[in-house]
């Protein structure tokens, strides 16, 4: 039997970097192959080469034993290759069904919608075809991308970090789906840096490091630390342990309510929350359940809210972001590009964005901004060409280190972080988590919103769950297991007020 996909000597060079160096491996029909590697290991470039987005400088691709030159995604799709991206290219103002219809062969919209509903129900993906894309959260967009990829009945499905935004139960369901697809003869290339998922799903795992295949292993036979060592070429970083008593209440939220907002997905229902100095609060939940609205309200991006928000002794419910920052509140939004940083501006300019002292009295202090960016690059080990580098030229992990560093270095007393390590490699993620723990030890009150439950278990002193704009009672991580937390994510938490003990 000819391999579904056969790669030999795939090489791609970007300037001085060799993104792919003579990569070769096969994927058999119906086989699930995991591609493991840190950010920057060349996984994305390789997938883009297979999917026809970039042309390799050398090497051959064969599909079902036939040598092909894939020069465009359209051609890849014609060859039966579909891809679910980590970053999505969608028309914001169109509905899900309209977006999908644009990518497939001409068909009446009603047919597309019906097929979407069918796929969505079968794989439990929970996306309304009639919703507009700009109303979708990152998680919903990812689920939409999966449905879209399945529309063309592909023979090879490539998934780029697909689970980062799914509930534990949904991940399991996705895996069942993938296994069912594999049983039907569909080959699957699964990119991830989550070792447990790879062990759960794949029979074969190709480990990339520095653009080369460093090993091909059976993940069930290898230990997690072996895999991690193969992936980063060194022993994995250790997360500092932490235990200290929390201090006084730093951030106090009472009756926070936004049910007057035009869009239901921004609704928050009477939230109450106390965060103490020296405490990390973890908020779990599938994205799009109000976490973004909560963060926007706490950070001051959204001022039209009911209820009260108190920072220490000050009522800041109506205070704009600059005022809240002056009181020591700092915020790291989920979206790096276009929200936490301006893509086309330099790191120097992006330092000016939230460092209000760098543009005091109407003048931008460019010298100080340069030194500030330089200091952040050095302290947080941001790989870049210097403070003059455009934010968009950095890898996701390095830009995240810069952004988190920018807020941490401002010595916050309260820090809000939405998805601190989304799409960030293992080393950078550990560095960011250790910074958060150090900050907690220094007495900062921290709110972490994350969809990575391992991360929340690792960091949080108390866990909360958000579902449909409501906040669960707080619970200590050791008092709740992942399965129960997953049920809470569907809104099924005990309806007693007494569980919120730390109020």
């Amino acid at each position, binding site marked *: 039997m000819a391999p579904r996909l056969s790669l030999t000597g795939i090489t791609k060079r970007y300037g001085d970097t060799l993104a792919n160096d003579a990569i070769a491996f096969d994927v058999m029909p119906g086989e699930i192959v995991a591609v493991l590697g840190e950010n920057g290991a060349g996984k994305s470039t390789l997938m883009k080469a297979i999917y026809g987005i970039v042309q390799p400088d050398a090497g051959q691709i064969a599909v079902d034993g036939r040598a092909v030159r894939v*020069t*465009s995604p*359209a*051609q890849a799709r*014609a*060859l039966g290759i579909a891809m679910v991206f980590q970053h999505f290219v969608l028309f914001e103002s169109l509905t899900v069904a309209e977006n999908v*219809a644009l990518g497939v062969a*001409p*068909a*009446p*919209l009603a047919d597309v919608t019906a097929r979407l509903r069918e796929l969505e129900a079968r794989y439990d993906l929970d996306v309304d075809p009639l919703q507009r894309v700009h109303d979708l959260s990152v998680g919903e967009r990812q689920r939409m991308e999966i449905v879209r990829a399945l529309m063309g009945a592909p023979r090879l499905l490539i998934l780029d970090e697909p689970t980062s935004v799914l509930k534990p139960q949904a991940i399991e369901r996705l895996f069942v789906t993938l296994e069912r697809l594999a049983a039907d003869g569909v080959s699957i290339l699964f990119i991830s840096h989550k070792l447990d998922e790879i062990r759960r799903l794949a029979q074969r795992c190709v480990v990339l490091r520095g653009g080369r295949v460093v090993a091909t292993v059976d993940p069930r036979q290898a230990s997690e630390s072996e895999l991690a060592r193969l992936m980063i070429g060194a022993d994995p970083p250790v997360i500092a342990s932490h235990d200290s008593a929390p201090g006084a209440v730093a951030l106090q939220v009472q009756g926070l309510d936004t049910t007057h907002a035009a869009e239901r997905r921004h609704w928050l229902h009477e939230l109450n929350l106390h965060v103490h100095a020296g405490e990390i609060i973890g908020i779990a939940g599938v994205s799009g359940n109000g976490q973004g609205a909560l963060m926007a309200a706490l*950070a*001051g*991006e959204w001022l039209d809210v009911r209820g009260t928000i108190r920072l220490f002794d000050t009522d800041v419910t109506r205070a*704009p*972001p*600059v005022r809240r*920052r002056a009181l020591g509140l700092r*915020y790291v*939004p989920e*979206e790096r590009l*276009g*929200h*936490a*940083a*301006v*893509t*086309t*501006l330099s790191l120097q*300019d992006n330092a*000016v*964005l*939230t460092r209000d002292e760098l*543009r005091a009295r*109407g*003048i*931008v202090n*460019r010298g100080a901004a340069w030194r500030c960016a330089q200091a952040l690059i050095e302290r947080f080990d941001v790989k870049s060409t210097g403070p003059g580098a455009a934010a968009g030229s950095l890898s996701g992990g390095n830009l995240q280190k810069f952004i988190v560093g920018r807020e941490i270095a401002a010595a916050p007393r309260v820090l809000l972080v939405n998805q601190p390590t989304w799409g960030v490699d293992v080393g950078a993620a550990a560095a960011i988590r250790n910074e958060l723990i150090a900050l907690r030890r220094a007495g900062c009150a921290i709110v972490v919103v994350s969809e990575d439950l391992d991360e929340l278990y690792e960091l949080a002193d108390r866990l909360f769950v958000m579902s449909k704009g409501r906040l669960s009672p707080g619970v200590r991580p050791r008092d709740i297991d992942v399965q129960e937390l997953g049920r809470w994510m569907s809104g099924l938490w005990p309806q007693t007020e007494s569980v919120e003990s730390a109020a």
Partner: protein
Amino acid sequence: MTSLTLPFMLVPRVAPSRAMTWLSPLLAIVLTLAAGALLFALMGQDPVQGLRTFLWEPLATRRGWSELALRATPLILCATGLALCFRANIWNIGAEGQLIAGAIAGGGVALLATATSTRAFVPAIIVAAAAGGAAWAAIVAWLRDRFHANEILVSLMLVYVAQLLLSWLVHGAWKDPDGYGFPQSRLFEPAARMPIVLAGTRLNLGFIVALASALLLWLMFARGAIGFQLKVAGLAPRAARYAGFSERRLAWFALLACGALAGIAGGVEVAGPVGQLTPTISPGYGFAAIIVTFVGRLHPLGIVLAAFVLAQFYIGGELAQSRLGLPSALSGVYQGLLLFFLLASDTLIMNRVVRRARLVVAQ
């Protein structure tokens, strides 16, 4: 679902050349001249002689240069204001209307001057013109802020309102009683005319004000916090909200500042070379300034250079009419060609052309 299929399609380039983004305006100018030469040939003129008249003659004398600078003055002023708006992603295309409103306000003050008035009228005219233009732009800002009205439509429509308002004034209340019934105001008194800065020419104080405004724009974006805020708001509105920059305040600022600058352009035009109010005080400076802004890459230095190019097209068009008997619409054609070639160059710098045949694969 059907779609129009062209044999070519555009694919975004991974890394557009930075050098080319700056060379693009020059390329566009060269292509415009080439197309212009062809145009002369098609109209039965010697292309070399045509281009000579169009390009060289305006530059041959000191007086020619001063006329060029005079024409560039309102273009620089309007384009500076537009750059401010465009950087913040506010698509004010009604600088022409704001210019006319400034001309009305400045001209209204100028008409108050008498034979015994002092030079104090000059700053008063400039301030009044700025206020007039800003007031006109404030209508746009208010409608945008209050009703989310589209500033492109509102600012454009207000151009025609301003033109009719001016027409109504010079046909009525402000008509020169000794003007043999022509729809124009009386000539302004010397005290209400812009001082000449280059003896023997018509070049006046307005040019200095225009250069100062370009310098101010440069300072604002190089060092000013407000320039930084405008830039961020234009590039990434969510990042601006995150940083706490008020989108509403910035929109008001950009529109008022642009209105004031365009208004000054109108004021120095009527109190400068024109010397009275007429129904058509601007040959579309406010619209041509949009081209200047883009050819100048929203950068003050680029704007000044581009304003001279467009000014040359105006003068060249007039010379082509008087010397070669060609229609004066030629300058408009040149403007259009320039914008067309600039947009085409930019498109090809940002994208590459791929033959569709290579994309199609046997199913």
